């Protein structure tokens, strides 16, 4: 057969939508950045406190990345070589922190590792001094909670990329576990670890909500948190702008580093395959693997269980503001979900012809929400009260944050659809809306449902730019929880946390489920 023919001119109509979204994205990133630079140029140079924030940001990100990945190695290995009941549940659970609202996780971690938490009670029982969760180790602990699962999934993919035949060959050569490690596993790890570390390092650089709740003070402030404090406490816009420039520099550095190492896809497919491992079929290793899996499961499940447990008793103490905040959050989440899906669809169509467009989706992450938020604040402030714009800005920034993930599942799926069914649709004259309704939307159901679920859950739990623009009357649920925590109303906070948890998971489940239903192979 001859090579695949190139289409004459595949439906170029509809591209205006893609270009419109691309332009919108660039404008909404570039304009705020320009505003930030313009404002920063008139302000004083960064002071010692600002540099301390930079140092702390990098330090906590390095520690978080290294701990997450090192702890993930034994967990991923155990998952890769053991078949047991609940394995797929555990793997699904490893995906959960991605859509878990940060504030809920923090509530859970406080319940387990906080001053009067389960962990300290256990320590007291065996006569050891209590640990302190606030400060550097609290921030790192929370980041490990979020990123250990991600690292585990990345490494598990690495393990599963080793062909099962290699393990068979190793077994026939009489390799012991140590030999298998140096022959097969270490080369894979050497190729996979740097990418995983850099990815998590980059994620932790923009940490705001964790630092806001568990950090703080001169010794545990990230740059993102410092931006917020310059805003809310000092209302020093010049300093916020200077810090934003610093944050951009840090993120760009990490992005450059990440681009050098080709990053893996964290989403992962086909994790059910288990290569038989003859060398590992012995009791000591089985017990060891079981131990690591149990520890990982406890580490992830205990905080969640604690939120549910304490939340249930806090439910009747819920002030009415919580329900109002929940409805605000719900409307925001649904709005930014629609926006995310529309933008992803439009950009994915454009990306069919221009692959580079997909990178544009990363803008929302590359420029951190608080930096964009600062810029938008600077832009709006001369003309009106930014609090009035809180809704629109939050919806837009949240949609931009969810966009890269949506684009990463929708764009390849659309490319496959066009490859498989594009010629048929062309020959039948399906263009424009007819093509969208008859071909694209029905076949994209699954990735669109998944993307919508992600966008909704992420937006529901977001505690970022909204904190800058906070309108006292229309707080979102995460913000409301933060206020309850600040007022030491921990029972009410736990109850609200449970409400937020249920809303986030339910939104994700509903959208994802909707995409799966009646989806034909």
């Amino acid at each position: 057969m001859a090579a695949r023919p190139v289409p004459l001119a595949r439906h170029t109509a509809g591209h205006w939508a893609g270009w419109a979204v691309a332009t919108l994205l660039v404008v909404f990133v570039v304009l705020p950045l320009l505003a930030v630079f313009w404002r920063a140029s008139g302000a004083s140079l960064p002071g010692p406190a600002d540099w301390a924030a930079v140092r702390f940001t990098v330090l906590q990100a390095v520690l978080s990345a290294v701990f997450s990945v090192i702890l993930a190695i034994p967990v991923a290995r155990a998952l890769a070589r053991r078949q047991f009941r609940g394995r797929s549940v555990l793997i699904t659970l490893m995906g959960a922190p991605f859509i878990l609202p940060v504030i809920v996780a923090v509530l859970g971690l406080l319940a387990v590792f906080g001053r009067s938490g389960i962990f300290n009670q256990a320590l007291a029982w065996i006569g050891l001094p209590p640990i302190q969760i606030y400060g550097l180790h609290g921030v790192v602990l929370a980041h490990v909670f979020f990123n250990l699962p991600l690292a585990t999934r990345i490494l598990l993919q690495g393990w599963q990329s080793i062909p099962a035949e290699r393990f068979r060959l190793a077994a026939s050569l009489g390799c012991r576990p140590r030999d298998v490690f140096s022959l097969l596993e270490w080369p894979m790890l050497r190729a996979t670890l740097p990418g995983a570390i850099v990815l998590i390092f980059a994620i932790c650089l923009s940490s705001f909500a964790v630092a806001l709740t568990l950090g703080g003070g001169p010794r545990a402030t990230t740059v993102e948190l410092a931006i917020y404090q310059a805003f809310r406490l000092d209302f020093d816009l010049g300093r916020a702008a200077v810090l934003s420039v610093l944050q951009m520099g840090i993120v760009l550095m990490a992005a450059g580093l990440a681009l050098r190492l080709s990053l893996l896809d964290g989403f992962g497919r086909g994790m059910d395959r288990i290569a038989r491992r003859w060398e590992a079929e012995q009791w000591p290793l089985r017990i060891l693997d079981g131990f690591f899996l149990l520890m990982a499961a406890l580490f992830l499940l205990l905080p969640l269980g604690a939120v549910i447990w304490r939340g249930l008793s806090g439910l009747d103490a819920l002030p009415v503001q919580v329900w109002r905040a929940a409805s605000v959050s719900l409307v925001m989440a649904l709005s930014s979900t629609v926006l995310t899906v529309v933008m992803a669809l439009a950009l994915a169509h454009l990306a069919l012809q221009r692959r580079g467009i997909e990178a544009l989706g990363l803008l929302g992450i590359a420029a951190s929400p608080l930096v964009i938020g600062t810029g938008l604040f600077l832009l709006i402030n001369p003309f009106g009260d930014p609090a009035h714009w809180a809704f629109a800005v939050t919806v837009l920034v949240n949609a931009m944050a969810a966009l890269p993930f949506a684009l990463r599942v929708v764009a390849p799926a659309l490319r496959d659809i066009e490859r498989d069914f594009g010629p048929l649709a062309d020959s039948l004259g399906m263009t424009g809306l007819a093509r969208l309704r008859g071909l694209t939307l029905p076949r994209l159901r699954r990735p669109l449902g998944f993307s919508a679920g992600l966008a909704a859950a992420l937006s529901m739990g977001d505690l970022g730019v909204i904190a800058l623009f906070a309108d006292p009357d229309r707080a979102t649920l995460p913000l409301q929880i933060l206020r309850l925590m600040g007022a030491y109303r921990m029972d009410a906070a736990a109850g609200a946390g449970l409400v937020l948890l249920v809303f986030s998971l339910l939104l994700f489940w509903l959208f994802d489920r909707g995409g799966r239903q009646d989806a034909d192979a």
Partner: protein
Amino acid sequence: MLTLEGLEIRQDAFVLRADLSLQAGALVAVIGPSGAGKSTLLNVIAGFFAPAQGRVLWQGQDITTLPPAKRPVSMLFQDNNLFPHLTVTKNVGLGIRPDLRLTQEDELRVSDALRRVGLDGYGSRKPGALSGGQQGRVALARVLVQRRPLILLDEPFAALGPALKAEMLDLVADLARETGATVLMVSHDPSDARRIAPLTVLVAEGTALQPQPTGALLDDPPPSLAAYLGN
């Protein structure tokens, strides 16, 4: 009449020239070694690939630059001839209206076509619930309702077993006779050509030759074809 006039198809280092014409209503096989450009030739006629030079004419009209759907062509590909998410009725209905706004009359035409290919009552099923042969029949039903005078088959039945494939080819021949359509059919199996195509276009060594009687060509093949056939 389909005329390929001074056609030159280029794809990187690959070149195929064609200067030939087919009578309307002819049933013609396209045979040649792998990689000779049989599929590419069909794709140029169908409008999926632009030729570097030359023209494609149908009944004297230049269709070289028309988009695929505007050509007088129905094409069946090697695979993915049906949308798995649409019912049989809708898959066939797409041949009438690409936006699927079918009138009652359209639906009647669809069920007539399904009856003709032996799939009466299968309209509400989805392709996944059909056998390979039945899926081929649905695609042919769509070709029927499209009522295009030129049918291009790029080995759509290659994955079927020999008996089923023969059955489908006979159905194609019957339909072509009934509708008077011109059929151009790629095949790598000479017995397909013998079975239904009186004429054959040989594609080899960078050229698509004027159609020749199938029997004579296969009985006394030129060296390039003989090497491919292995006799």
